[in-house]
């Protein structure tokens, strides 16, 4: 049980002038499951490795329970880590793998055996204890890697994309298991992933990073409903939020030749250039004129829902040049056919506005 604090922690790799992690300040609460998410190269793994002691901290501090760990060797930090490729010791049996840390800590043999057995029971790998890693399937190896971490009863768990080597079905099942296990054990956990679905489903809070800079750290629902900026808005949610170029007009936003009415007072002077974000589920075909005009190019019928990809028409411009497709969610079997020209309205004015130049969210008044 521990509180982890990043205080302006910075890491710049040699031969690089751009920091991989740039003045990161973040607090992981006691017992919390915090997910670090972002595209590859955003600094999330570096952040984790800095906490593990595998990467130097060039500036700033990292504290566990208020004590700086910056100058401690990995072995003195009382943390356990699950690696993306598991990093199981190939020459040791499953039981030896799981007991290695305890052996290093000179825990008596009988106690090691007991704790390994207990952890194996939790993870349902008791039958494989005498096997070597190469005799295990991917899913079993993943469990052993988890087991190696929980046997230690560390202060903090670190997990670096532990599910990325599993197939899709196993990943979903293991995702739920890890989240449940963490809640049972109550150990503070920092979990790195590039998969926003994993982040949203597992984390108590999710920290979104980009180019070494923390963009936003909040609960999954808040990230979804109130993204701090255009990047978070586009990164969280699948399919992504639609981002369009617009101008604030009286009581709404002008997109091309149409105006979409806002639900609340925008508190932004008319004529201000903004980026408008609309989730696919907030779009619907308008019956009585108006709406964003678009030509359906593709329909994804998923059974429980359908996603319509449509090409923007009539002077409506996307915020990102070239990405001129708008995505709308439909109930199954109600989607328009490809080639049709549709007009999409925003339900209840549920849109997000972002500053066109800085990308920061503009908070509307109620």
């Amino acid at each position, binding site marked *: 049980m521990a509180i982890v604090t990043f205080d302006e922690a910075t890491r710049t790799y040699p031969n690089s002038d751009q920091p991989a992690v740039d003045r990161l300040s973040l607090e992981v609460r006691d017992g919390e499951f915090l997910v670090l998410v972002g595209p590859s190269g955003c600094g999330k793994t570096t952040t984790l490795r800095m906490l593990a002691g595998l990467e130097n901290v060039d500036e700033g501090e990292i504290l566990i329970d208020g004590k700086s760990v910056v100058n401690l060797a*990995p072995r003195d930090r009382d943390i356990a880590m699950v690696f993306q*490729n598991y990093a*199981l*010791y190939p020459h040791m049996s499953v039981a030896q793998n799981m007991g*290695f840390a305890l052996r*290093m800590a000179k825990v008596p043999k009988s106690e090691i055996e007991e704790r390994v057995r207990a952890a194996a029971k939790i993870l349902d790998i008791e039958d494989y204890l005498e096997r070597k890693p*190469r005799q295990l399937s991917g899913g079993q*190896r993943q469990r052993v890697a988890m087991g190696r971490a929980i046997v*230690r009863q560390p202060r903090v768990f670190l997990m670096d994309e532990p599910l990325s080597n599993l197939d899709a079905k196993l990943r979903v099942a293991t995702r739920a298991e890890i989240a449940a296990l963490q809640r049972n054990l109550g150990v503070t956990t920092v979990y790195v992933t590039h998969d926003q679905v994993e982040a949203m489903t597992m984390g108590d809070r999710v920290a979104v990073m980009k180019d070494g800079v923390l963009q936003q750290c909040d609960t999954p629902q808040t990230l979804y409903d109130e993204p701090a900026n255009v990047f978070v808005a586009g990164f969280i949610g699948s399919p992504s939020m639609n981002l369009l170029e617009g101008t604030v007009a009286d009581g709404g936003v002008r997109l091309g030749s149409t105006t979409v009415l806002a639900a609340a007072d925008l508190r932004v002077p008319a004529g201000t250039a903004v980026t408008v974000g609309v989730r696919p589920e907030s779009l619907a075909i308008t019956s009585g004129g108006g709406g964003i005009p678009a030509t359906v190019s593709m329909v994804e019928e998923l059974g429980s829902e359908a996603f319509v990809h449509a090409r923007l028409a009539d002077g409506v411009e996307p915020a990102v040049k070239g990405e001129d497709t708008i995505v709308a969610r439909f109930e199954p079997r109600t989607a328009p056919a490809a080639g049709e020209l549709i007009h999409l309205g925003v339900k209840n004015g549920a849109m997000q506005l972002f500053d066109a130049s800085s990308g920061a969210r503009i908070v509307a008044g109620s």
Partner: protein
Amino acid sequence: MALSRRHAMNFIAIMILLFFTAFFFVPIIWLFLAPTKTDGQLLTESPFAFGSLSTLAHTFHRIVTYSDDSVLIWLKNSAIYSFGGTALAILAAIPAGYALALTHFIGRRLLLAITLVVMIMPATALVLPLFLEINKLGLYGTIWALILPFGFFPFGVYLTYIYFSATIPKDLLAAARIDGAGEWRVFWHIALPLARPIVALVGFFAFVASWNNFFLPFVMTYDSSQYPIQIGLQQLIGSTASFNPANYSAGSSIVVLHRPDLAMAVIIAIAPVLLVFLFAQRSLVTGMLAGATKE
């Protein structure tokens, strides 16, 4: 047309291969057959003729007991020098290669470059300065004069460096560090058990280099009782009648050797290397790392 041309090409290729196979195998076959014949038979009979087993036993007995079991003493000396040198080479090369591959320290790149450069340098070039050094240290004439120089084995360091940088995932060592192992225990508990194939390979090369070394023991030893087998072989050539007709005229009472005896001595000299090779080969199993990580 195309088919027959391909046949012709195949035929030529096979002919070339057969020629070279014969070219290299004939001397070896001759060598292994020679001790079964007497010196006279060696000249009169076909090169591939098999003499007799009793002649072979006789030849073996003659060479082994020659000059108060000299051959056995030389073999024993060779074994001491080679096993000692090999142990030292492994002890030095494996940790050095590991450090160059998987740790960071100031001067690492420079050391790596130096390793490569000295690897190219012929070992013979160092024999004279080594002799002077050993002499100054008062080790001349001791077994250390032939063992200590093998602690310097840049080729082994380089092989180990390549092995560790190519096969051991860095995460494996990171995992051990997080699990509470210090640098020494990371090496001892994780890296070394996974390095068995390279320990065997470096050991084998070091053993062969030491066993077959001629010039270093030639300089460092002064008495027949210290000779390794390679120097001994040279002495045997000096005692072979056919190579030194002036010294051994017919009817002389000195025990002389003949060519089949010399061939037998050569076979005895290479046998340990063959044995070590068979032994090391078993340890050269790959796939030790399967299952460590999933790439």
